[in-house]
């Protein structure tokens, strides 16, 4: 590949004396489909030349579907590809006025795209929380393939297009009750509000994004979640229209590759996305954070959680009688949404710990088991409360499996008050739980093949209250502390995770716009 600092090969479309951006791509490469639309906003600052490694018809279709606003030419015989020699696509070569390669961007790399934008005097073009990954490798360049596929443009490519057709209209005959029709055709097992044109229109009027905009592609079937599809499901869930403000970032977040909803929706495990709301949006839209926070107390919590589930079912196709293979399921698959009780939290709330300002509303997702209760009414000291929590934490996933999982610890206000009185900071709570959650070595017997025992040689040994134990969690960051619930009652909760980290699901937090 030609290196930075080298003079680029000649290209008829290059504008001499100006900066040029040469972009190699393939039409069927998902990373190219994600990357190229970002470049539209640079078209007035740099001469962009798209170079397609596919044939004329596939290229034309790509330009239309991806709504590219800059010229694209077909690399006939892959001559330009051989001259520039990108190893993979997309590869972007930013050439300075002298025709020297100033910057190269390979694959989808948001930081590099934003640096490239800065090079040509533009603000960032690839936002952090638009649902696309920060980095994604592309596909091998066609000219390096053993048999060149140039010219076999596949007309059946499904593009990751930014907009889609409007939703179909369904006419329900006079003698059919639209509620019954909707339950039979689009529901989970509960009744839904029929998504009439008028109701969907009210939802659409509450947000400024056009109805046909694709917000995300929802696994496992990768259905296009247009704003209109999201609105129709929000109507069915009973959402007030104002919730569209939260639903759009929520759908982006749930489809963020780091969260891995594909796996969460298909696993035999209990996991369901737990939605945690922080910031001023709680008061603005009525998200509840106090007593009965996990249950049937507030329209905002219940309908937002249900709308997400209906979108996962209807647009994503993760149906409980189909691809969703969960052995026992999870009541959270009807709705699983809480808000943090920031007013009873003397420490920083979850979204602040995750890098947002306190006055920025945010939504966090965690691939979660149902909550398991921790009752501790007799403890005199904060440490004793945390010991009770640690004992519940030791049972996450499977008692003897260590170092693989994470947990959300939901501390109730009364427990928080005792901990704060005893001088615990949030970080100290986490540290204490990390250091005091373990499984005694005596529970691992020779020739016992129980889950978690075979991996014991990889576990970290610690001592808890004089007893040798394996440490339950891999890192401090495996524990997420949230304050929620009513001010009466000393009941906290521990919520176990599904598979975690890059091999499973990672917690994601997205900002909610004002």
């Amino acid at each position, binding site marked *: 590949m030609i290196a930075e600092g080298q003079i680029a090969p000649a290209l008829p479309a290059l504008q001499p004396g100006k900066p040029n951006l040469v972009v190699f791509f393939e039409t069927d490469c998902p990373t190219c489909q994600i990357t190229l639309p970002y470049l539209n906003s640079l078209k007035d600052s740099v001469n962009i030349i798209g170079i397609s490694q596919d044939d004329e018809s596939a290229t034309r279709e790509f330009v239309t579907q991806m709504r590219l606003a800059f010229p694209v030419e077909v690399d006939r015989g892959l001559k330009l590809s051989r001259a520039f020699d990108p190893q993979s696509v997309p590869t972007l070569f930013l050439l300075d006025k002298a025709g020297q390669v100033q910057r190269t961007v390979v694959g989808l790399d948001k930081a590099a795209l934003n640096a490239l934008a800065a090079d040509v005097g533009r603000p960032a073009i690839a936002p952090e929380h638009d649902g696309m990954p920060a980095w994604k490798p592309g596909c091998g360049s066609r000219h390096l393939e053993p048999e060149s596929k140039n010219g076999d443009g596949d007309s059946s490519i*499904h593009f990751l297009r930014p907009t889609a057709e409007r939703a179909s209209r*369904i006419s329900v005959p006079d003698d059919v009750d639209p509620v019954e*029709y909707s339950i039979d055709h*689009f529901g989970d097992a509960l009744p839904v509000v029929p998504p009439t044109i008028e109701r969907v229109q009210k939802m659409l009027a509450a947000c400024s994004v056009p109805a046909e905009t694709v917000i995300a592609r929802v696994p496992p079937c990768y259905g296009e979640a247009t704003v209109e*599809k999201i609105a*129709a499901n929000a109507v069915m869930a009973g959402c007030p229209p104002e919730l569209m403000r939260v639903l759009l970032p929520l759908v982006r977040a749930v489809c963020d590759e780091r969260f891995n909803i594909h796996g969460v929706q298909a696993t035999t495990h209990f996991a369901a996305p737990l939605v945690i709301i922080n910031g001023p949006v709680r008061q603005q839209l009525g998200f509840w954070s106090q007593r009965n926070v996990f249950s049937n107390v507030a329209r905002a919590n219940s309908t937002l959680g249900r709308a997400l589930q209906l979108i996962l079912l209807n647009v994503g196709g993760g149906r409980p009688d189909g691809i969703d293979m969960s052995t026992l399921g999870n009541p959270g698959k009807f709705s699983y949404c809480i808000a943090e009780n920031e007013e009873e939290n003397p420490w920083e709330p979850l979204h602040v710990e995750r890098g947002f300002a306190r006055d920025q509303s945010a939504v966090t997702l965690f691939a979660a088991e149902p909550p398991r209760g921790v009752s501790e009414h007799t403890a005199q000291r904060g440490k004793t409360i945390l010991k009770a929590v640690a004992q519940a934490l030791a049972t996450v996933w499977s008692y003897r499996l260590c170092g693989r999982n994470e947990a959300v610890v939901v501390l109730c206000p009364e427990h928080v008050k005792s901990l704060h009185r005893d001088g615990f900071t949030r970080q100290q709570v986490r540290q204490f739980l990390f250091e005091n959650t373990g499984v005694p070595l005596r529970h691992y017997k020779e020739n016992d093949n129980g889950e978690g025992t075979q991996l014991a040689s990889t576990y970290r040994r610690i001592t808890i209250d004089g007893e040798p134990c394996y440490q339950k969690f891999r890192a401090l960051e495996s524990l997420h502390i949230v304050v929620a619930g009513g001010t009466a009652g000393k009941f906290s909760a521990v919520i176990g995770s599904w598979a975690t980290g890059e091999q499973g699901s990672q917690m994601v937090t997205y900002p909610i716009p004002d």
Partner: protein
Amino acid sequence: MPHTLVSPMNETVVSASAPPARLQSLSGKKIGLLDISKPGGSFFLDRLEKVFRERYHVAEVIRARKPTYTKNAPEPVIEQLRHADAVVEGLAD
């Protein structure tokens, strides 16, 4: 008057691919075995490989492994299996 509803269902058009012709015999064929990296999967696939080789006289067994069972197979894994006549994927523990 009939009610008109807005479809909340997935309407994304995807092109279906026809399944390849069923193999009439395993003899002399190239068979891919995909381990999705669930615990215990390799024991089952090891046994299957032995059976394929000894009882069904397959010409070649390609062993591929996903980095994690929680996600789709990445392109390099698919590439390994691309030229197999048939693939067996072990799905669970």
